[in-house]
């Protein structure tokens, strides 16, 4: 089981203009995620959601504090689904799948399996430019799952897609997650999406601070059937707006 331990993490970027103020992307966050859970991080643009994932994946380094992702006593193996598919346009779909794997034929079989799971078994020899945006993103999802990561990072993977494609991909994601039960950190600014998919929702506020931490423990994952209560005790509707006090079906944490 992967464990994400974030301790008093801060990330400040240099001023974008000469003489300007430094940009605080993350301001003193502490967080612990453990187990095969689907955790969503929601918040407005610029609150440090993507920066947090970049630090966890080693793309960015923190300014202060620490962040570690472990599986037992070793560093965890990561998968990443980005906002856009980020496929190599000059390599075929199968070559893109194999780009992130180090094994040979066994890896190809596994890659083919995950492509099949997202309904793209017929695209192995095609180039990404031959696929629609939604299909490319499905390849991106299959690629991330195919490395069989201990922790899967997903950075607003459906934000560039139309509503129908996004819904279809959410279904694919739910199926894949149900089949694999990976630990997932899922960044989104869509509260409904977070509620539909998650076991736990962490709400970030501007300035990169944790505003709220919500645990959801009622299947199935449907926004209509899932009442929830925030850490602050505010009942939430699926739309993310506060509503009247709910029945005692949600769980409070901390």
């Amino acid at each position, binding site marked *: 089981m992967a464990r994400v331990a974030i301790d008093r993490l801060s990330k400040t970027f240099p001023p974008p203009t000469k003489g300007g103020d430094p940009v605080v992307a993350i301001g003193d966050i502490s967080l612990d995620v453990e187990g095969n859970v689907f955790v969503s991080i929601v918040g407005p643009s610029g609150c440090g959601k993507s920066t947090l994932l970049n630090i966890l994946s*080693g793309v960015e380094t923190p300014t202060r504090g620490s962040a570690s992702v472990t599986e037992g006593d070793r560093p965890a193996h990561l998968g990443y689904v980005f906002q856009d598919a980020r496929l190599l346009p*000059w390599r075929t779909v199968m070559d893109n799948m194999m780009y*992130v794997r180090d094994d040979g034929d066994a890896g190809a079989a596994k890659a083919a399996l995950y492509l099949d799971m997202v309904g793209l078994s*017929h695209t192995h020899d095609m*180039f990404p430019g031959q696929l629609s945006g939604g299909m490319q993103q499905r390849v991106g999802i299959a690629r991330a799952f195919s490395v069989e990561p201990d922790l899967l990072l997903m950075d607003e993977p459906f934000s560039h897609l139309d509503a129908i494609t996004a819904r279809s991909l959410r279904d694919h994601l739910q199926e894949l997650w149900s089949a694999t039960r990976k630990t997932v950190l899922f960044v989104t600014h869509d509260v409904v999406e977070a509620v539909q998919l998650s076991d736990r929702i962490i709400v970030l506020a501007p300035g990169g601070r944790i505003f709220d931490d919500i645990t959801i423990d009622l299947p199935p994952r449907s926004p209509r059937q899932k009442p929830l209560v925030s850490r602050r005790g505010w009942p939430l509707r699926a739309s993310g707006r506060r509503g009247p006090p709910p029945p005692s079906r949600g769980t409070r944490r901390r």
Partner: protein
Amino acid sequence: MTAAPVAIPEAPTPPGGVRRWLNSPVGAQVTAAVVFIGAWQLLTLIAPRVPGPIEVMQFLFVEITGGSHGGIVRGQFFEHFAITLQRFSLGLFFGFVSGLLVGILIGSSTLARALLNDTVLVLLTMPAFVWAFLTTMWFGITWQAPVLTVAFASFPFVAINVAQGVRAIAPELRHMSTAFEVGRWKHFRHLTVPAVAGYIFAGLRFAIIIGWNGILLSEWFSGQAGVGFRTRYWFDANRYRGFVGWVIVFIVFIVLVDRVILNRLQARAFRWRDQKEVDFIEIQEQQVGL
């Protein structure tokens, strides 16, 4: 109220056979060649010392077939051409490989850029004939002089183009590689090289042209054999048809390398760009027999 009928203009009739051929790329190229040869022939009427196209072709025929040039000397086309090609290939290999490595270094490291970028820019401004002089001074009349002239003259063109290409690699793809912990060699082979391919081809094109110029000059100054030496031989012998004939060989070789080798390599490297988006709905309809 009834709307007045709108007259739909008729589509223009496509041009006929000869006009269509003249408007095609092949037609335009053939026309340009014919105009050039015509202008060349006209020039011989104004300047009698300029050898005409037929005269030059006759010379090249004798030179290529190994016939006798009026009892003076026999044609030695293949011997000289092979020697030059050998030297050129070796020099281009050194210039290209070193340019590729230095270009990648400059493109990917700020320190290397600060250290090497200006030096490469200075080398870029050096004309090929300077290298031809310098290598002749350093190595004398040896095979190293033309080889190194090609290497020195071609190196900065490859390096500067590749450096620009590396800097232009999408950071998103680099982040993807980092996030998935892709190994360095794999990253280089599958991401860096294909991403920079366009810049590599541009650099290689310049390198071939500049290197070919360089070897002609170097062999002219210091050669005992080769295309440059043979061109000078005919120049010194006051046989301008020989001189122009070898210059034409020189130009035709470059054009053939560009058209036959580089264009094909480029088409192969960029075949992924030419793929059309697949209509999956159509495929599904075909599968269910609609």
